[in-house]
């Protein structure tokens, strides 16, 4: 419910809502964590960089 | 010159009224044709007031056109677009032109029409509008100010009721308030179930008002089903829907006319009510056929 809301906030500023996803994991679920990370890496690769241009520190 | 509507009501005859919907714009040829077609066949011709909250020509000038054509107009006045000042001005203006029959309505809400961002007025409601007319007749405006001079308007005041409203009790409570406020004639929302209507009339007969059953021409089974699902207070019973559906291809309208005519004939022959108000929305040209079907032309 709040994840959906936050996806909406991202969409409002032109950031693809798929970049955000909620996974329910415990600290002992290492394989599931790996899968989740890999899934989101794929999403990030597919979508490419966001439009946000952070100035170099 | 048409006989005054009030006279027709008081004569005890089975009164017939129909309606004319002014167009959006100034092309009034079709409307004039309908007026010509209907003016001598009915005891009164209602003119709708921005019906369904769709902007159209205002009622008063159209009532005048009906009068000039020799018909008897009934001015429908809703409370949606005018405050109490404008309503009273219009009533007085109507009266000085000889337009005395007024049907008092609250009015559909603004957002169901075609100017959804317009400011809804609803300064008065149909009950208070009837009281306003009564007040003017007694020489006082709504704020209690005396009218100038000796002359006083008199109106033939009407209101509506929905006999198939669900729940019915609040509707009947309001109906009684309208009568208390001075309603002399009532035109009902469309009815199709005569048994239900007879029950309503049994209750309504205790009041001193003339009641005209609303008749809306069915043009298809689809229309009947649509109204059942979407229009408050309209109930088309299954047997009528089946009858419409069973009509030969291309003959649905004729079937609708037959049904309307039959209902009117029954209402008259069995003395169920004092008359009918025919709403042939978009099919005003068929009203004479309905009357013929009812044996009333």
């Amino acid at each position: 419910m709040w994840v959906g809301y936050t996806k909406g906030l991202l969409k409002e500023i032109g950031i693809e809502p798929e970049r955000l996803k909620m996974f329910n994991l415990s600290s002992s679920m290492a394989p599931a964590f790996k899968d989740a990370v890999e899934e989101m890496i794929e999403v990030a690769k597919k979508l490419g960089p966001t439009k946000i241009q952070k100035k170099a520190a | 010159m048409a006989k005054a509507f009030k006279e027709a009501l008081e004569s005890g005859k089975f009164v017939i009224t129909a309606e004319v919907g002014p167009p959006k714009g100034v092309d009034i040829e079709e409307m004039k044709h309908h007026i010509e077609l209907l003016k001598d066949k009915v005891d009164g011709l209602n003119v709708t007031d921005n019906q369904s909250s769709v902007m159209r020509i205002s009622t008063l000038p159209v009532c005048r056109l009906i009068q000039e054509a020799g018909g008897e107009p009934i001015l429908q006045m809703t409370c949606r677009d005018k405050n109490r000042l404008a309503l009273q001005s219009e009533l007085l203006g109507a009266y000085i032109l000889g337009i005395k029959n007024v049907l008092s309505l609250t009015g559909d809400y603004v957002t169901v029409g075609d100017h959804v961002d317009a400011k809804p007025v609803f300064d008065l409601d149909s009950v208070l509008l009837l009281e306003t007319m009564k007040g003017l007749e007694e020489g006082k405006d709504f704020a209690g100010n005396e009218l100038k001079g000796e002359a006083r308007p008199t109106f033939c005041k009407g209101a509506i009721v929905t006999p198939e409203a669900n729940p019915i009790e609040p509707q009947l409570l309001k109906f009684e308030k309208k009568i208390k406020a001075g309603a002399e004639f009532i035109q009902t929302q469309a009815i199709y179930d005569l048994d239900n209507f007879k029950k309503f009339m049994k209750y309504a007969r205790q009041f001193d008002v003339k009641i005209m059953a609303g008749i809306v021409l069915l043009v298809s089974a689809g229309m009947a089903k649509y109204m059942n699902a979407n229009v408050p207070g309209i109930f088309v019973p299954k047997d009528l829907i089946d009858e419409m559906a069973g009509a030969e291809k291309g003959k649905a309208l004729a079937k609708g006319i037959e049904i309307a005519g039959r209902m009117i004939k029954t209402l008259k022959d069995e003395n169920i009510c004092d008359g009918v108000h025919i709403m042939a929305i978009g099919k005003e040209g068929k009203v004479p056929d309905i009357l013929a079907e009812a044996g009333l032309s």
Partner: protein
Amino acid sequence: MIVAERKPFEEIKAMIEGCKKILVVGCGECVSVCMAGGEKEVQILASQLRLAFEEEGKELEAGETTLVRQCDKEYLEKIKDNIDDYDAVISMACGAGVQFLAEMYDQKPVYPALNTQFIGVAEREGEWSERCRACSDCVLAYTGGICPVAICAKGLLNGPCGGTNDGKCELSKEKDCAWTLIYNRLDKLGKLDNIRKIFPAKKYSVQTTPGRRIHEAFKEKE
């Protein structure tokens, strides 16, 4: 309480076009309760604005603060010392708070982040409904505690209208018909006679624009 909702993001962003430093000011009362303009919403809006500006290669410094409320000068004073650091202020208060802030700090553009909607109640978490139109002529004593001005779409005092359908309003099946509710409530209380009388018309003259009330104790006396 007053219920409001945040304006569409693009509308707010357009208000501060050209600004480099803005202050986003929240309000700790009504708009916090209806999750529109409280501390959390200030954080969210400020973050969104920063990110959105960065997407266009522009920088935006967005300060964040939340006042107890913005309809009281005592609490508005809190930003007195640093407001001049900013190009503009976005107030996340209701319309009253925005105006009061703008009045006190009239040297700065003050922009509204919310659309103020109504006086209402919390039906459940995350859902608020209108109950009062502040009409200065309360009739709740006659209608069994149900307001025809706020709940009836047409604001009728002699309802229902012909559009009522199965207890629902002509406008939408989601809206209750106020007069059916009133009828049922009065029936339950045994007070249907209240609405058998013809209710007089609303007195709009009591709703002065703008309204003003001075407590008796504070009026000038001879």
